[in-house]
């Protein structure tokens, strides 16, 4: 089996998925041992050297026959679980799980902190709608937003009115002078 620039991508993908046969893996090791590989695959050279060293030790221990038909590689006992590839995959899976759990915990705690802050910022607010009194800040969230937007509009108008008054006073002062 000859690996070329065109099919190397497919075989590397199958290798990482654990779907390569012994022969295909040996071909991959030999390919990456070659110094004349494309630059874009250079970063995998050390990884395949590592895989090859691990596979060679396991082969020496178990003396597996060469499998020519494309079948998933099978190993028995502890050797299977100690395969570097499987260990690496478990490490990646464990890291991803830990990160997901940490992210979820951070999101939940920040949500509760945000809720507590909102409640304390607007503590004392209330609404009366059709005779019904409500002072639950979380329920009033929308009403609070409306009130704050209204306040912003009024403050813009007030600034304009005060500026106009100042200008009128300045004009009057100029007239008297």
């Amino acid at each position, binding site marked *: 089996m000859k690996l070329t620039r065109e099919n190397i991508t497919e075989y590397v993908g199958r290798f990482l998925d654990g779907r390569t046969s012994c022969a295909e893996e040996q071909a991959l090791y030999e390919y990456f041992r070659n110094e004349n590989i494309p630059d874009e695959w250079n970063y995998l050279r050390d990884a395949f050297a590592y895989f090859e060293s691990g596979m060679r030790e396991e082969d020496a221990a178990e003396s597996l026959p060469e499998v020519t038909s494309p079948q998933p590689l099978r190993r028995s006992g502890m050797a299977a679980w100690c395969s570097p590839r499987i260990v690496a995959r478990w490490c990646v899976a464990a890291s991803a799980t830990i990160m997901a759990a940490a992210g979820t915990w951070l999101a939940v705690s920040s949500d509760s902190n945000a809720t507590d802050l909102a409640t304390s*910022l607007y503590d004392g607010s209330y609404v*009366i709608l059709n*005779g019904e009194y409500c002072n639950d800040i979380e329920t009033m969230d929308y009403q609070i937003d409306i*009130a704050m937007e*209204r306040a912003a509009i*009024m*403050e813009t108008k*007030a600034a304009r009115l*005060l500026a106009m008054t100042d200008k009128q006073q300045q004009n009057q002062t100029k007239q008297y002078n």
Partner: protein
Amino acid sequence: MNAVKLRIAAALTAILVLSVSGSQRVSAQEHIDNLISRFIDSNGGTISYRSVVKRNPSTHEIEKRVVELSVSNKELGRQLIAAFEAEKGTADGMEINRVSPSYYTATLVWSSPRRIYELSVSGSWVSFSAVTNYGQ
């Protein structure tokens, strides 16, 4: 010596005038606030009333209060128009529109502390808003 006494008297007079005008400002706003408070306390019906306070996150003191009232009540409309007309002389900024006897809008602004009062009366419909900034 007489010049010194005159200066002291002028300063005291200025202080008296400022304090009286300041108290007039407070009473103008209190007049309008009291009208609203009495109406809210006495009237349970179909009103929409919002009182929102915003506090300083560090000190928890109130920084801003926003009050909004919407109600259909001709008498309240007349009372508020009268209050706005009476108090407009103490405001630092204002805008008043008397489009017709049944349509009136006004905005009064006091700068220190910053208070903004808005009123819109259309027929029997009254819409009142007030923003008070504390500590400014």
